[in-house]
């Protein structure tokens, strides 16, 4: 009985005291936090994509503050598992944790992260809602991304690109196995296309009632004509290999691979008029982070206007700081208007599950 009481109170302490520690830090003036960060001297950031590239780009932060940034080579699943496993430790390995905006609804962020972060100097310019998720102030957006269609200009001319969903359907029928999207279990570009198909084939009444039958019918009737790849990377690799002419892709992923010499630089990207979703990721400080001050200073740097502009220019991300100015980029500004929001978390999960059940498994 006593041990159960002890465990219960221990649990309460564990769950609340890191938050209290964050409260202490939130009451300090920012200059003190920076000093403490410099003393801590290092910060560990768990991000699941483009880590080698990020390692190069954070050198600006390392030089400015003298704080070493470690970005481990993890995967999406690996990082999430690590994050969950670390939770019970008094001090964890993770100082800054990246989470996809669409994953925010899946857990109670207040018990996992320190915060809220409203004491950050630029908090007013930052986003806490992105990609259908709301961080409730415990995490801020550091990365915006856009899905669209990547194409090979040597195989299809810009004027022939399908823009409306009907045009795409006709194009797929007249060019079988030239368009592809990936299994949603292998990355978000495929599920972005599935959501675009849902929005363009299902009436708004049916959408509100969660009846997506019209979309599954579209997929089944075209199943011999579109290609179905294993992952984001698989789609782009096979575009590069000449197997497909148009694939669903992430703008930042394509830019990153082109930079690394994996995909030929001639490949282009466009957002069709029928709209594809834009999303983003957030960063927060886990409640049991070892280097909280360094983590906060790093997040401040990562989300600053200057850094956002640099990331956009170097890696093709979308800006998430309202003060940052767009550098122009390869996509005309008018196309950005076709970007849509991801459907709500519950609907997204339903659509993903039903797609697998009704389209993938029934074939």
């Amino acid at each position, binding site marked *: 009985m006593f041990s159960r009481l002890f465990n219960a109170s221990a649990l309460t302490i564990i769950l609340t005291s890191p938050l209290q520690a964050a409260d202490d830090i939130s009451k300090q003036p920012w200059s003190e936090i920076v000093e403490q960060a410099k003393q801590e001297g290092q910060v560990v950031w768990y991000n699941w994509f*483009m880590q080698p590239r990020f390692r190069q780009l954070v050198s600006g932060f390392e030089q400015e503050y003298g704080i070493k940034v470690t970005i481990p080579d*993890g995967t999406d699943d690996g990082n999430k598992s690590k994050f969950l496993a670390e939770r019970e430790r008094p001090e964890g390995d993770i100082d800054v944790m990246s989470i996809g905006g669409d994953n925010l609804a899946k857990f109670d962020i207040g018990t996992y992260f320190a915060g809220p972060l409203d004491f950050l100097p630029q908090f007013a310019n930052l986003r806490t809602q992105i990609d259908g998720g709301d961080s409730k102030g415990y995490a801020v957006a550091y990365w915006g991304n856009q899905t669209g269609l990547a194409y090979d200009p040597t195989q299809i001319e810009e004027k022939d690109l399908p823009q409306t969903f009907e045009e795409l359907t006709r194009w797929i029928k007249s060019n079988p196995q030239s368009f592809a999207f990936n299994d949603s279990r292998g990355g978000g570009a495929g599920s972005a296309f599935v959501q675009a198909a849902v929005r363009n084939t299902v009436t708004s009444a049916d959408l509100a009632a969660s009846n997506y039958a019209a979309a599954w019918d579209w997929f089944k009737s075209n199943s011999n004509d579109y290609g179905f790849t294993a992952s984001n*990377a698989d789609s782009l690799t096979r575009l590069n290999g000449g197997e497909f002419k148009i694939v669903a892709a992430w703008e930042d992923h394509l830019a990153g691979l082109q930079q690394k010499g994996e995909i030929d630089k001639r490949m282009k990207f466009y957002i069709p008029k029928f709209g594809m979703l834009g999303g983003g990721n957030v960063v927060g400080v886990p409640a049991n982070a070892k280097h909280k001050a360094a983590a906060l200073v790093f997040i401040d740097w990562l989300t600053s206007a200057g850094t956002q502009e640099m990331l956009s220019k170097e890696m093709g991300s979308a800006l998430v700081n309202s003060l940052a100015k767009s550098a122009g980029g390869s996509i005309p500004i008018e196309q950005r208007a076709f970007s849509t929001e991801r459907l709500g978390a519950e609907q997204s999960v339903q659509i993903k599950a039903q797609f697998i059940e009704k389209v993938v498994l029934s074939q």
Partner: protein
Amino acid sequence: MSRTRLNTILIALFLTVIFLWLAIPFAMAILWSLVDPDHAWSYPDLFPQKLSFGRWSEMWATTNLAGALANSYTLAPLVAVMAITLAMPTAFAFGRLDFRGKAIAQFISLLPLVLPGFVIALFFTSLLFKLGIYNKFLGIVVGHTVLFLPFAIRILSVSFSQVRQDLIDAARDLGAGPLSRFSVAYLPVLKPGILAALIIVFIQSIEEFALSFVLGSPDFTTVPTILYSYLGYNFIRPNAAVVSLILVVPNVLLMLIFERLLRSEGAVTVGGKG
């Protein structure tokens, strides 16, 4: 069809399969790893436009490949030896004794194979933290040993069951002590089993990602950590080819070494007339 003709056809078939299954993918991996970073290899080129060792030096410099190699190749032999040592008594029991609940015991010993990697990694890590084991190396050694015990137990059980009782009896009759009995009657037959178990546990440990990442990162990196990230979201085929080739070569070398060290003539030869 004569025997030799059949043999020739089968060998030709075998070589074709080897060529298609191993040689071509290997050649592709080597070619991909030599693609110059500034000139992507894309359709419609049949061969890369420019070859260079740029990727190899870049990968060696930017990822912690040297450290990861050192970690993986210190971890794996230790895990292999520990797994075999721990598996020996159990394998002896399963291979040579009959007792009540043997089937259930055998079933339980296979449980680590049943659960998915990340599930085990997540909860095993939590368990280790609860037990206060924070040393990453030790934690991963314990984790891997538990995970790969089933392999060692199964293989060694088969080996133990092949040891001939009359040899053991003969040795005892001639006055050999327990240690001599073991080295004369058991060891020659066990050698191929030990070799097989060592290799399998070694390879499994080298390639295990989930537990080594969840427990080991960020300080303790292993080669799969780097490889998995390059094969997943960051799939950059030339870089993944470099890491894959690096991972293959030491394994092949070690296999050749093991093969030479632990060669056994087999149970029949050892047993004499049989």
